[in-house]
């Protein structure tokens, strides 16, 4: 039982990251009806930008020293001689990293936003009015462009990036079993869920939310009613790219920075369809489910099986519910 809960926790944590990634795919789909196959690579760029700002730039000569490592006296006093990996040491080192983490996050958000706007403007906008199929395939083409560009800019080195939150193990006992989780993962969980929830609230209760929902339902009518639909498209891409940047930072700090992040985004597509392409709530459920199932598969069946869990799950779900958990069925009038 204790073990079961351990893997539940692991599953929920990775599920929350899946949800954060899926969020971007759904946001773009709802507004623009484009399924962005390149979302994983947008995340990859977010991760690399985070690395660039938090590691490379923070160490640049022109940066003040306190950005690279902020080390005020009180912090030293607090840290004292805490053992490595102890909560105290972890918090102290996180605080001293804080300036560069913030720099990294702000930089990644900004840079990724610019990137998304460029993509939206140069690639997606000219395809307006073209078939959904063409748009999807152009995002596939985008994968090559982004992957190549990343290789050109960052020479594909595997790097370490600072975690968003202080990272120390939290241990507790449940059903006579020692359980643990990393505090950093907990922070990631909270960040992911907060982003998810705030976006849902914005959509539900603000005037801009109404505009976005209107566009999601009927682009051309919204356009004809005075809603600046291209701006809504850009907004959706902004939402995708900024949440993607956070997701990238989380993934990079959790599992290491590497081009594989891009492909990981592709597997999230299965999760998105499982939840229903146009339903945030459905996608949240699907993310958690896949996170937990993968974690359980990892536990009982090993890594190879865990890899295909999202695919098996989406296949089963789609067969039972052809539009995912909460997707809207397109009604065909005869």
């Amino acid at each position, binding site marked *: 039982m204790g073990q079961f809960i351990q893997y539940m926790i692991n599953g929920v944590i990775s599920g929350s990251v899946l949800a954060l990634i899926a969020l971007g795919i759904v946001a773009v789909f709802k507004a623009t009806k484009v*399924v962005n196959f390149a979302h994983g690579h947008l995340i990859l760029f977010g991760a690399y930008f985070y690395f660039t700002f938090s590691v490379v730039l923070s160490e640049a000569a022109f940066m003040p020293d306190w950005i690279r490592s902020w080390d005020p006296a009180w912090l030293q006093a607090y840290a004292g001689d805490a053992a490595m990996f102890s909560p105290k040491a972890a918090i102290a080192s996180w605080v001293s990293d804080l300036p560069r983490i913030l720099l990294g996050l702000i930089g990644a958000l900004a840079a990724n936003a610019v990137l998304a706007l460029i993509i939206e403007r140069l*690639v997606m906008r*000219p*395809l307006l009015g*073209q*078939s*959904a*199929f*063409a*748009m*999807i*395939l*152009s995002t*596939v*083409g*985008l*994968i*090559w*462009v*982004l*992957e*190549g*560009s*990343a*290789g*050109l800019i960052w*020479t594909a080195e595997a790097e370490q990036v600072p975690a968003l939150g202080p990272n120390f193990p939290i241990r507790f006992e449940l059903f006579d079993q020692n359980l643990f989780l990393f505090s950093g993962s907990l922070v990631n969980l909270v960040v992911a869920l907060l982003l998810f929830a705030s976006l849902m609230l914005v959509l539900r209760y603000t005037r801009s939310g109404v505009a976005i929902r209107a566009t999601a339902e009927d682009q051309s009518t919204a356009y004809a009613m005075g809603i600046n639909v291209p701006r809504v498209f850009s907004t959706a891409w902004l939402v995708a790219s900024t949440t993607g940047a956070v997701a990238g930072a989380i993934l990079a700090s959790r599992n290491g920075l590497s081009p594989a992040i891009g492909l990981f985004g*592709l597997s999230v*597509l*299965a999760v998105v*369809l499982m939840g229903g*392409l146009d339903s945030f709530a459905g996608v949240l459920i699907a993310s958690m489910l896949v996170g937990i199932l993968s974690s359980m598969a990892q536990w009982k069946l090993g890594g*190879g*099986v865990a*890899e*295909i869990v*999202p*695919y*098996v799950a*989406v*296949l089963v779900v*789609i*067969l039972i519910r*052809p*539009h*995912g958990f909460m997707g809207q069925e397109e009604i*065909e009038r*005869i």
Partner: protein
Amino acid sequence: MITGHFKTDYSADEGIWSNWPKRWGLVAALIGLAIFPFMASNYALLLAGQIGIFIVAVTGLNVLIGYTGLMSLGHGAFFAVGAYTTVAIHHEWPLTFPLITLVISTVVAAAFGVLFGLPSLRVKGLYLAVATLSANFIILFLIEQDWLAEWTGGVRGTETPNAVFFGIELVSQQAKYFFIMPVMVLMLLFAQNLFRTRFGRALIAIRDKDYSAEILGIALFSYKLKSFAISAAYCGAAGSLWAYFFPAILPEDFGLNMSITLVVCLVAGGMGRTLGPIFGTILILLVPEMLKVVAAAITGGDATSQTWVSPTRDILFGLMIIGFLIFEPMGLVNIWDRFWRFMSRWPFAK
């Protein structure tokens, strides 16, 4: 000038080689195909072989996506099934006649196609695409399993047999070329014929308006399954040729990358047209190679420059795909059509 082809009866009007440029174009293409290997290097033959195999597979995909309107991102799996069936047959019965193996591989792939096609009754569009993509991952996962490793070689892949025709082993790429090309030509003709008769028309009808097809007496489910089976069979045949063509196969050859490449070939060439897969495959498989050759000529094969050359190549390739979708969404066939329209009217109009 190629204006005015007058027909005297309906069956002439139905013919596919209805005018002389088409007839002579075909003859010229066949002659070209036949003499090509005598002038080409191994490398050119490697590319030609791959292109021939891919054309077969993309034609299969065309049956499904282009003609029946069902999306698939999982056709790499059928490719894999064809290839591994061929390997497995030779593993059990080393001396099987290659054409028999080819047929069996095709049939096995078709059976998998039916299996994959089952969701297509309920699921459409992107959902179907992801369902097939999932199936692709699952099939590859199975191939990698240890309990199948005796036949598949597991993750490490396996060596493949050479085709042996009446005691002649096809070892050189030239010899393999002469195995691949006739199969390709026949399978292209078969597809071309299919779509001017009842069967093919039914598939197109499903693509254009499925409920309308249904009230004309076309059994949707059965035809969708048949379409999946045919398209899988083409990919299975391609897989079998692939196994004969390459000295070894690996599961990862048949992953998402291949499935997407197949779709990209189809779109670049033009969906729902026989020539589409041919044009698209040639373009998509040759462009990266040409870019390589160009890059090598510019940099002289210098190792250090490779750090920027290969990413740049990826970028160019991606941009080409996007450019295609923006400027020529109907594919290369459309350019071809425009060219012929121009030719047939010239010099009377532009």
